[in-house]
């Protein structure tokens, strides 16, 4: 018994030392799924860009349930992958358990802050990007009512909604903003049927521009908006191409840049890292699919707002700073 244990131990030590030299980066997707055409896909695209430019390779895993988070982290860490990039706020608990056990492994978490010497926390100023698309929504709206569909009801998504509502009211102080959340469990990220039902209800209340910040659920929102002939706003990745001429714009959250930088850096900076409008972390999408929808006036107003946010003249209230929103009641 003891002998077999020793053998097994020796074998695993050998296996560890054999793989540790590889040090490929690894990427873990959240429950929305790798090809959600949104957050996770954006992360994937960043990793693919890195792999194509450097000729390197990376390991990846798509989670099926919450319980797998810690397991996936430990598996990659044991296999010697570094840095291990995880896309999603929900990894915070698992990572704060795992990170101290692997001091030589570099971890990168997106959308959440984990305080450990070997963790790089990347957060985005979503409220700033949402503010910009909120301005565009208000300018494009004819009814004076616009709406928002969030995924899971968490502070991060409320931050989107709050920034959006502030942008809307900056253009039209009398505008009504309807905000709905899909659910309170992780399945809310992947429920397109409910997304489209919520959108139909909002259109019934007069909304003619809808902003979806809901992962895979957002696909149903954009679909319902296109079916009913109103405008929609995509999120995270550029989703303008999904329904050409019917998606006003997309709130870009450059998760791909965050992943790319983490994988490409020789000497990765640990600690807190904010990506806002100033350093290209968030913004709005303009391409051939929405060129006819975005007027010159709209573009000028939004670019001016972006410039003053960068310069610090315009402060967009961050919901997560005090859990309140001046422009919207949840």
């Amino acid at each position, binding site marked *: 018994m003891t002998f077999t244990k020793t053998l097994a131990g020796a074998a695993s030590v050998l296996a560890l030392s054999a793989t540790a030299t590889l040090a490929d980066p690894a990427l873990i997707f959240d429950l929305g799924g790798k090809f959600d055409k949104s957050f996770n896909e954006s992360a994937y695209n960043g990793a693919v860009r890195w792999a194509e430019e450097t000729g390197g390779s990376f390991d990846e895993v798509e989670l099926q349930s919450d319980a797998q988070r810690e397991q996936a982290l430990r598996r990659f860490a044991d296999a010697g992958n570094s840095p291990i990039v995880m896309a999603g706020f929900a990894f915070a608990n698992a990572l704060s358990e795992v990170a101290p056990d692997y001091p030589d492994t570099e971890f990168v978490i997106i959308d959440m802050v984990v305080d450990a010497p070997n963790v790089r926390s990347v957060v985005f100023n979503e409220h700033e990007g949402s503010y910009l698309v909120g301005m565009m929504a208000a300018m494009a709206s004819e009814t004076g009512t616009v709406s928002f569909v969030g995924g899971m009801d968490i502070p991060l998504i409320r931050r989107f909604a709050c920034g959006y509502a502030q942008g809307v009211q900056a253009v039209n102080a009398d505008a009504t903003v309807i905000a709905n959340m899909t*659910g309170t469990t992780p399945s809310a990220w992947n429920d397109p*049927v409910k997304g489209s*039902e*919520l959108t139909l209800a909002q259109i*019934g209340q*007069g909304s003619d521009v809808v902003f979806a910040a809901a992962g*895979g659920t957002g696909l149903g929102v954009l679909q319902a908006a296109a079916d009913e002939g109103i405008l929609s706003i995509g999120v995270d990745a550029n989703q303008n191409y999904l329904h050409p001429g019917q998606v006003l714009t997309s709130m870009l959250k450059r998760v791909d840049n965050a992943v790319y930088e983490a994988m490409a850096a020789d000497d990765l900076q640990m600690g807190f890292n904010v990506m806002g409008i100033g350093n290209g972390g968030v913004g709005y999408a303009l391409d051939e699919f929405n060129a006819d929808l975005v007027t010159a006036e709209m573009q000028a107003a939004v670019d001016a707002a972006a410039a003053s946010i960068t310069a610090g003249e315009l402060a967009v209230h961050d919901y997560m700073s005090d859990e309140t929103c001046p422009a919207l009641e949840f």
Partner: protein
Amino acid sequence: MVSSITDLITGIVGNFFTFVQLMDATVRMAIPLLLACLAGLFSERAGIFDIGLEGKMLAAAFLSAAISFTTGSVWIGLLAGIGASMLLSLIHGVASITFRGNQLISGVAINFLAAGLTVVIAQGWFGQGGRTPSLTGAQRMPEVDLPGAFTRIREMRDASPGMQFYSEFISGHTVLVYVGLLCVPLSWWVLYRTRFGLRLRAVGENPAAVDTAGISVVRLRFAAIVICGVLCGIAGAYLSTAVQAGFTKDMTANRGFIALAALIFAKWRPWHALGACLLFGLFFAIDNRFQNIQLSAFWVIVFLVAASALMMNYARKNERIDVLVLGGISAIFVTIAVSVWISQIGDGVGAIGALWETVKLPTQLIQSLPYILTVVAVAGFVGKAIPPRAGGEPYVKER
């Protein structure tokens, strides 16, 4: 008369068009349940328990979306979906009728098979992470627009109440909604007015008697299973090509199991199945539509206390388990009612004044409503549900 009815409805939900939209959403959510429920009805009436409804719907949803995308025709997709569902049905039949296996185990196996295979095949086929590409144009189930009806919600909002009702509720559904509703009288007619229906019901109650009469039990049960497959196939195709534009992982979201609950609720009868499915559809429509309900505290308290009183009154006459379940839920309701009241007292508002303060119902309460009501309905108000007597037992011919 008409205006007083619309006034009443307006008083309850705030605006007549909201009410029409709620009804519309109810039908939309109920149709997949209804089709699956009727599928289960045929199968269980013939004595074959089928918990594989979920898996069959899922497989049909996937294959109809995939074939619809590749061929560009939703009708070929629909046929493919029905084919997939029938194939799984036949597996269930071979396992549980021919080889007399356990029907529950075979059903569970079908659910697992469908949940896994759809995602794996979709990934291998389209490489989009277990979903099919988005369907457009002729790849989706067309909507039937009756003459003169508005097609866009924005146009309907300004129309007259009658026009709103006609445009949103009567018109504008996909073909499968009307097909699904027609299936109810059709099922009733087949089951209760044809020789085949009589034999089908008999085979679920007393297969030995049917066998003695010289009719093949195996053939009848296979016929029931095939009907079950067709209906599940339509339900699945409805989800992926009509409600949604494409297949996503686990998109049936336990509708197959909810359909089974509705079937018990309906006590294995077609018209009651329609009622049960519409009720469940309404719960889900309420959940989707009314995330922010604002009511005066008085009405919240009245509603909660009245519901508890009704439940306790009902439970008193029944068995102990009913008293326990319904009593527990009543206690929770009353606690909520009291806490709502207490939370409104203060800031210069007295105990009586607090009753007229407006409260916002928490989203979580609205979201749990379908499930609470399901428990109440199934545990309490269904009465005694007696399944077909020979259900779940393989028939062994006497030698």
